[in-house]
C-alpha cells in the first residue's frame, strides 16, 4: 500500500498532464498544477526552514565549531522574518493595511534588502570574473584535440570582441575578409555554435521524454520508495 499509492499518483498525474496538452477542456489543469506546486512549496518551507533552524540551534547549544556564526544566521533570520511578516515601517500600511506592497520603498524590509541582500548577491555573483580567470589559466591548454578545438574557438571569440583582434587581422585583403577575426567569430557563433546547440537541445528533449516516461511508468522510482519491493 505505502509503496503502490505514490507510484499510482505519479502515473495518473503524469498521464493526465500529458493528455491535457491535446484535450482543450483539460488545458486548465496544467495551470492549476503550477499553482498547486507553489502552494505545496510554501508548506514544504516549514520543513526546510525548520531544518535550517534546528541545525543552527544545535550548533549553538552543543557549541560545535563555528557556533558563533550560527547565532548570526538565527538573528538575521528572525529579524528579517519579523520585518517582512509584519511589514514594519511600510509607508503603505497606513492606507492598505496588510495588502501593502511588501517591497514598498521606505519599508524596513526593502531597506535591509538594499543594504544587505542585494550587495551580497551582487558580490557573490561578481566573484565569477575571478574564477573565469583562474579556470582559463588552468583549463584552456591544448592537451588533446578536443581541448585544442575548445581553446581555439574560445580564443577567436574573445579576440573578436576586442580591438586587439580587429587590429591584428586588419591587414587582410578583401578576398580574405572571411578570416578577419570579427567575421570569423560571427561565423563561429552563427553557424558552428548553432549546430552544436541544436544537437544538445534535441538530445536533451529525447533524454527528458525517456526519463519522464520511466518516471510516469514507475520504472524509475528510487526517489519515491527505493528499489524493488
Amino acid at each position, binding site marked *: 500500500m505505502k509503496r503502490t499509492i505514490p507510484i499510482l499518483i505519479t502515473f495518473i498525474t*503524469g498521464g493526465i498532464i500529458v493528455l491535457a496538452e491535446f484535450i482543450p477542456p483539460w488545458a486548465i489543469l496544467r495551470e492549476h498544477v503550477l499553482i498547486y506546486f507553489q502552494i505545496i512549496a510554501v508548506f514544504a518551507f516549514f520543513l526546510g526552514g525548520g531544518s535550517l533552524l534546528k541545525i543552527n540551534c544545535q550548533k549553538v547549544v552543543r557549541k560545535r565549531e563555528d557556533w558563533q556564526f550560527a547565532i548570526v544566521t538565527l538573528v538575521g533570520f528572525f529579524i528579517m522574518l519579523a520585518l517582512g*511578516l509584519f511589514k514594519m515601517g511600510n509607508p503603505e500600511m497606513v492606507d492598505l493595511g496588510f495588502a501593502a506592497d511588501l517591497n514598498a520603498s521606505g519599508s524596513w524590509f526593502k531597506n535591509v534588502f538594499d543594504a544587505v541582500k*542585494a550587495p551580497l548577491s551582487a558580490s557573490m555573483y561578481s566573484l565569477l570574473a575571478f574564477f573565469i580567470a583562474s579556470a582559463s589559466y588552468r583549463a584552456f591548454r591544448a592537451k588533446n584535440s578536443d581541448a585544442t578545438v575548445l581553446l581555439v574557438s574560445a580564443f577567436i571569440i574573445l579576440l573578436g570582441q576586442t580591438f586587439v583582434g580587429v587590429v591584428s587581422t586588419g591587414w587582410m585583403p578583401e578576398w580574405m575578409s572571411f578570416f578577419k577575426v570579427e567575421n570569423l567569430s560571427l561565423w563561429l557563433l552563427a553557424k558552428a555554435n548553432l549546430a552544436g546547440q541544436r544537437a544538445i537541445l534535441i538530445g536533451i528533449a529525447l533524454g527528458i521524454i525517456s526519463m519522464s516516461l520511466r518516471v510516469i511508468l514507475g520504472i524509475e522510482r528510487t526517489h519515491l520508495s527505493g528499489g524493488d519491493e
Partner: protein
Amino acid sequence: MPDASPIGIFIAGLLTLGIFSFLYKDNPVYKVCEAIFIGVSAAYWAVEYFYSALYRKFWLGVFPPAGSGVEADLLLWGGAILGALMLCRMIPKINWLSRWPLAFIVGATAGLYMMLFFVSNAMKQIESTMQPLIQDSLLETLGSFTIAIGTITGLIYFFFSKEHKGIFGGAAKVGIWVLMVTFGASFGYTVMSRMSLLIGRMDFLFNSWATNFGQMF
C-alpha cells in the same frame, strides 16, 4: 540604489569586501557575511512566498474579498491538502503520507516537461534546421552545410547503443569537435557580460562607497 541611505551604502560596501575576502582564503569575516546572507535571504524568501503564494494565490483565491465579484476557486484546496500532507513528515507514524504530494509533483513535472521539451526543443530545432543547403553565396552555402552536418554529427555523438567505431566513430569524433566549438564560443561570449558585473562592483566600491565614506566621516 539611487535612494539608498548612507548607512545602507556603508554596510553594503563592508559586505562586498567581506565576500571578496574569500578569494584569499576562508576567514571569519567571510563567515559572518555568509551567516548573515543565509539568515536574511532565507527569511526574505519565506516572507515573499508567504505573501505571494499562500496569501495572494491561495487565501484570496478561496476566500475572495466580499463584493469583488470573483468566485472562490475551490480547486485550490487540492494544493492546500497536498501541502498539509507534506507536513505529515513531522509526525513519525504517518510520515509516509508525505510521499503523496511528492509523487504528485514528480508526476506532474514529468508530464509537463515531456511535452514542453518535445515541442520547444525537438520539434522546433528540427524545423529550423530544415534549410536549403545551397544558398546565394559560397559562404552561406558553407554555413548551411556546417549547420546540417554539425547537428547530425552532434546527435551521433550522443548515441548510446552503438559503439563509436569506424565511420560511425569518425562522425562521433566530428560531433565532439562541434560540441567543443560550441562550448568555446559560448564561454568566450559569456565572459563579456560577467566582467561587467565585477566592474560594476568595483565602481560601487571606488565611487559610491568611497564618496559616501568621505561624507560620513
